[in-house]
């Protein structure tokens, strides 16, 4: 597996460092082609989480259409759930339904994810 934290110039590309992951030297890999090597760089602490990219990478498997439609998981756009409910669900998961991401994201990043969910609009594309 890769041995460095990698960032890209493109701000849409997923940067995924938690505070704890930076401290213990955890790693990300880029397999995106010829530019990857040139863009390897340590992630700055507190880097903004790119939640849109996160949905395309991982969350969208269950939350269809980038969270805009129900799939294996519920529709997130216009969810009636409270912020606290969503934060708890992201952090702790639900057996057989939602993985727990508390070991991957810190509270600040989970806040960012919930803010993104609240901003979801129908896809105009």
């Amino acid at each position, binding site marked *: 597996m890769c041995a460095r934290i990698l960032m890209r110039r493109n701000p*849409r590309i997923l940067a995924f460092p938690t505070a704890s992951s930076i401290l213990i030297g955890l790693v990300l890999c880029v*397999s995106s082609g010829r530019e990857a090597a040139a863009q390897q760089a340590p992630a700055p602490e507190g880097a903004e989480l790119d939640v849109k990219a996160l949905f395309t990478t*991982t969350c969208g498997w269950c939350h269809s259409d980038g969270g805009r439609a129900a799939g294996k*998981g519920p529709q997130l756009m216009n969810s009636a759930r409270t912020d606290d409910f969503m934060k708890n669900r992201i952090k*702790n*998961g639900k057996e057989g339904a939602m993985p727990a991401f508390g070991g991957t994201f810190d509270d600040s990043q989970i806040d960012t994810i919930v803010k993104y969910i609240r901003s979801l609009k129908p896809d105009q594309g």
Partner: protein
Amino acid sequence: MKRVPRNIARSVALAIGATLAASQAFAQPVDTARIQAGDANDWLTYHGSYRSYHYSPLDQINTNNVSNLNVAWIHIPGRSTRGLQSTPVVADGVLYYTGSYSRTFALNGATGEVIWSYIPELDEALISRQTHSPYNRGVAIGDGKVYVGTMDGRLIALDMKTGKPAWDTKLIDSQKLTVGFTGAPLFAKGIVVIGAQGGEWPGRGPIFGVDAATGAKKWEFDTVAGTDDAMKTWGNDSWRTGGGGGWMPGTYDVDTNTIWWGTANPAPLYDWSGADYKTQGARPGDNLYTSSVIGLDVDTGKLKFYHQELPHDTWDFDSAVGEFVMLDRDGQKLVVHPNKSGYIFVYDRSAGLKNVWRITENSNFVKDIDPKTGELIGRRDFSAGKVAEPLCPHISGGVSWNAGSYDPKTGLYYKLGQEWCMTLTVAKTTPITAPQVQLNIGADFKIAPPPSGEIYGHLDARDPVTGAKKWEVRFPEPPLASVLSTGGNLVFVPDSRGTIHAYNAETGAELWNHSDGTGHQGGIVSYAVNGKQYIAVTAGFGGMASDDYAPTFGGVYKSMPRDDGALIVYSLK
């Protein structure tokens, strides 16, 4: 003194007889020769036998009396998170099967009496972080043991008589790689073969050969860049996070000492390379040995041959379906293997291509596959952005990972096809490997109906080599479970709504059905104890494909549990 009512006394006597019959079973070891020879009363591998027919020659239950089928007994495995997905195996009257969390049971096949159970202690914190979990699809048996994989990366051997662990081998660092084992192992020649999950997880998708006697790992084959030649098919070191895997059991060709296995797709699922996928995108090149069938020497794990069904798969239509139907047809030894795309590949016994045919009506990821060369004609390679025309089939495939059935009496292959599509917007992604590996999809997507109309599924009766169709039965929602055909001229289909159907194998006429109370998405087998034939089917919904059913179809799926299940066993009244 109270008299024991005659019917109770008879029941007790029958139960004792059945128990004795079951216990006698243990005197006969299950080994490679016995699996190869097969016995109508047994179901010795996940796929029934090394021929992988999912067929029982038993004919006590037949077209004339199937209407008298009745529930003989039921077993509740408990904690059926995401339902039940396993296929039982049966030897000498004892049925072995698993539930979620690799809960393993040995049951008296005549009565359902629990002979032993084994509930492994798993890394629950790890499992809570997994997406494709905690279901398990079954066991292998051989050399006096029962073998089961776990979601936390272990392969465990249990004594067939007692259920006590004989060994417990950690094969994958699941805490780091997230993936574990959901598929059943395969026993052959003193080796237990099991493949890891993979596909959308950045990793190298290993398949393992483990010594059945000791639990020592004998070999490991990486389905991503497992050879120097294959390494060259992954540009920019993309093999490091390539995906792959082999999450369903294949089979063993005793004539050539070869394990046949299907491999999973590369990651990310959807590449943004555009047409120039050989040099551009997330993983430039053909990405060997993903979405391939491979032949491995059972003793060494060395690659003997392969055929990559989908070079540079960018649709998640992998070859991990473990069904390899070993046919003898007109003096030729053939192998029939369904690809998830809905194309069915026919090979010789060295994976030389003999034919390709398609079971689905709605398919547009390629225009066609050349039946002589296997070339993908008119393939759709996406660039980043919204894809204008929906992709068919849907990510859940043109066929399920569950198996069809080949009936050597009718010469027909009974296989389920799935008609659905998806909209998608492809985007560049970065593999996430820390602190723990995460899915790498590469698109936002949503299920969509096919251009021809509504989503549906169909059971086809076809020639397995040419694909010529004899009859078809349609279902309003795609059935996801395995199919069983029997010597009684019957084909059994457990459907998604929870009804099990029996059809005339020659005509497709429905002869019987019965509700099992919840959807099916696992296996169905037949066996005999003391001369009596049984049909055993797992019921219990939930998982990667079935989780889409409630929002897509509504109706009965809205209230269908996704944390429940039962093994239901039928016999004649």
